[in-house]
């Protein structure tokens, strides 16, 4: 009965018993409360997306049902088939356009930014600081301040309604140069001297020795650039005019008018499909995507 581990101090005193219980259960209670509050936030963040997914699987007639069902009430995968089958929407083409642009832009940035970043971080050349300062200065300029002359330039080059109008300016970024330069600078300085003594050329040093060592930096920039390109609405909306050139963000907005009389469920299915690549990227590399976003923030 007199187990000291249950009643360590002054057995019989009710106040101390209460204090002990408090000490034991209060942190748990508080943590449970925090968990519940966070769960409410998480549910609010997820509800619109849950409704989107569930409604994309319903009969189109039930799309606007109230009270709303946030969980799937039926699984009409035909809605998804219809997205692909429709000759008018041409979803696969939008998907391909988005993917093509995102891949070219991401590859381009990884190359141009890492090359420039390597030179800025590890090579000696005249005008290095001035050029780097110029790159940094371009980061301060908002897109609105350059879009008009850029639009005029594209008009002159007859590149309106061409994917090149979206690709060309996105092939490099000052942010990417800055980010990767930090990563190169964090590598030991003797590395390049050792490689030089071995007689390696500078491009060889960059490609074979330095690039493999900044994997985290490259993947951060890659994730960022891919998602940014995939979600780019602003310039797609300005430059793309014809239906067959559309990328997903602009097509999803236009679909509403196009399918005014059509099936909302099919449109929601198309929206789900256009989020799918990001969802897959996120599910499989969740920790990694989140780390990419934080890494750019804190250590930059």
């Amino acid at each position, binding site marked *: 009965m007199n187990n000291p581990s249950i009643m360590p101090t002054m057995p019989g005193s009710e106040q101390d018993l209460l204090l002990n219980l408090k000490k034991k259960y209060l942190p748990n209670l508080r943590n449970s409360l925090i*968990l519940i509050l966070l769960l409410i936030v998480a549910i609010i*963040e997820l509800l619109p997306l849950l409704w989107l997914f569930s409604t994309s699987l319903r009969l189109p007639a039930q799309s*606007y049902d109230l*009270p709303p069902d946030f969980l799937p009430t039926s699984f009409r995968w035909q809605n998804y088939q219809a997205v692909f089958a429709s000759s008018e929407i041409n979803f696969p083409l939008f998907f391909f356009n988005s993917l093509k642009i995102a891949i070219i832009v991401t590859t381009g940035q990884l190359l141009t930014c890492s090359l420039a970043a390597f030179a800025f971080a590890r090579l000696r050349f005249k005008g290095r600081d001035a050029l780097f300062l110029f790159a940094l200065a371009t980061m301060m300029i*908002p897109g609105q301040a350059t879009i*008009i002359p850029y639009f005029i330039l594209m008009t002159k080059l007859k590149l309106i309604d061409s994917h090149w109008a979206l690709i060309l300016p996105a092939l490099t970024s000052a942010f990417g140069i800055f980010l990767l330069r930090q990563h190169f600078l964090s590598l030991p300085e003797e590395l390049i001297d050792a490689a030089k003594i071995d007689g390696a050329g500078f491009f060889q040093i960059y490609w074979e020795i330095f690039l493999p060592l900044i994997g985290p930096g490259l993947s951060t920039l890659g994730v960022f650039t891919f998602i940014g390109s995939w979600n780019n609405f602003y310039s797609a909306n300005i430059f793309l005019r014809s239906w067959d050139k559309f990328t997903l963000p602009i097509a999803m907005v236009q679909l*509403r008018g196009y399918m005014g009389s059509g099936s909302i469920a099919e449109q929601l299915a198309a929206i789900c499909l256009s989020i799918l690549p990001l969802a897959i990227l*996120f599910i499989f590399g969740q920790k990694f*995507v989140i780390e990419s976003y934080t890494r750019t923030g*804190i250590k930059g």
Partner: protein
Amino acid sequence: MKEPQLSRRSGLSNRLIERLAAYVMVFPAMLLLGVFVGIPIIASLVLVFMRYDALTPPVWIGNDNFVRLIKDPRLLTMYSNTVKLTIGAVIGNNVLGLLIALGLRRITHRFWKSFLRTSIFFPVLTTTSTLAVVWWFLLSDNRGILNWFLSKIGLVPVHWLTSSNTVIYSLILYDIWKTCGLVAIIYLAGLQGISKEYYEAAEIDGAKSSQLFRYITLPLLTPSIFFNITLGIIGGFQIFDAPFVLTGGGPGDASGTIAFYVWQIAFSRFEFGYGSAVAVVLMIILIVITLLQFRISQKWVFYE
């Protein structure tokens, strides 16, 4: 006699090779930045003195665009909307984001921690235009889900997107829904960077948890706070997608932002000169705000 000369020459040419290699390496990036940022920004600074619609040749009109800009009542509305939107979003995102991060730090259960982080962060990866249909339905007046809930709990339905008094708050709420997860994980990373030794030492001295927050957590979190606020303001001043897609800037001009207005002037009315003037003023304001923030940050941001 010959050897030192040789090595000196090869040393010189090594320098030259290094320099050449460097120029080749920075060339693609610098060319692209020059053509797509450098030249356009100079062109913008010239365009502000012109009237130009891309069809007829440009006309030099001096500072007429700036005279017009100062008298433009719509511009004032757009700035007032943008400032409201930015302040609301920055405060909302940072308060909620910090609370989420502080809460997440206490969750030790692995499944819940990962589930919460994933669900709260996922909206960051979505884009406004793609999800527009969903938000129209959520926020619609008569058949919207949100208003249905409000009426169920006995409240009056809100004209989320159709009343000029509420529309800006709806956009603030939308921005918080979309962005608070990003702000939260940046705070979480900041919190995880704080060494546990500080807390242990303070606890030995008998500090209360409110004191721990006030004297350890908050000061050591100031770099993250500074980062989130700076990015929030820069991003807030350039909000375009939400007003463009969800409200069209309306009703009236109640939800128009400056970025939206620049688009309207340039790409719906094709007044490239005036559009450039508005954009360049926005750029100057943004640069001044950013520099001021860095200046002020020296007074309150604490670096270990």
